């Protein structure tokens, strides 16, 4: 089974702090994604990556950056956390060129005080 692991399930940070959310997948998938999930808004794409060292902006990239130095790892970075970034963050991976079947991690709930 594909496993997507997000390193932290719950984080509490202060405004202005730098935050790293880590995601690792174990199935050699080419594609990796970061979404945020908010009640009533569904899942919104922040950034995605089709290959190592490659990244593309999603629908809401402002205030975020990403890093993909290795195929299995995709990091989401909040350079200076703000309260409006309090949310559930979901990482996903998929095999390139296949169906829209994304494999999601269990999520990281971030609270920014």
């Amino acid at each position, binding site marked *: 089974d594909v496993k997507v692991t997000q390193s932290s399930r719950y984080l509490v940070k202060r405004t202005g702090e730098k935050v790293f959310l880590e995601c690792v997948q174990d199935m050699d998938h080419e594609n990796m994604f970061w979404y945020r999930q908010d009640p009533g808004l*569904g899942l919104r*794409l922040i950034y*995605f990556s089709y290959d190592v060292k490659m990244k593309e902006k999603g629908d809401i990239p402002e205030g975020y950056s990403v890093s993909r130095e290795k195929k299995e790892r995709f990091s989401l970075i909040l350079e200076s956390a703000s309260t409006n970034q309090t949310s559930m963050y979901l990482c*996903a991976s998929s095999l390139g060129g*296949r169906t829209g079947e*994304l494999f999601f991690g269990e999520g990281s709930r971030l609270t920014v005080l």
Partner: protein
Amino acid sequence: GESVGLHLPTLSVQEGDNSIINCAYSNSASDYFIWYKQESGKGPQFIIDIRSNMDKRQGQRVTVLLNKTVKHLSLQIAATQPGDSAVYFCAEAENFGNEKLTFGTGTRLTIIP
């Protein structure tokens, strides 16, 4: 039970009954549609997909219907079970194999014992 119109937030169905979850999409260029299920505390999980050259596709206890004329997608779950209680998301992409998905806001399905 049946939800109609736009993506409603909640739907309650008696155990054993059939349920229908509806989704309206706005992008007429969307060519590929997927349903995901998200159980409490977990990431979304792929259920079934359909391409725009089809109007119906069946899986195990689930059927997806697509009406491109009115830009409407539905997920039918037969003989609902307690384990079907979850939030269901529709998602769309402009072409098959493009994993950059746009998600709907979700419908919470509750199965009443």
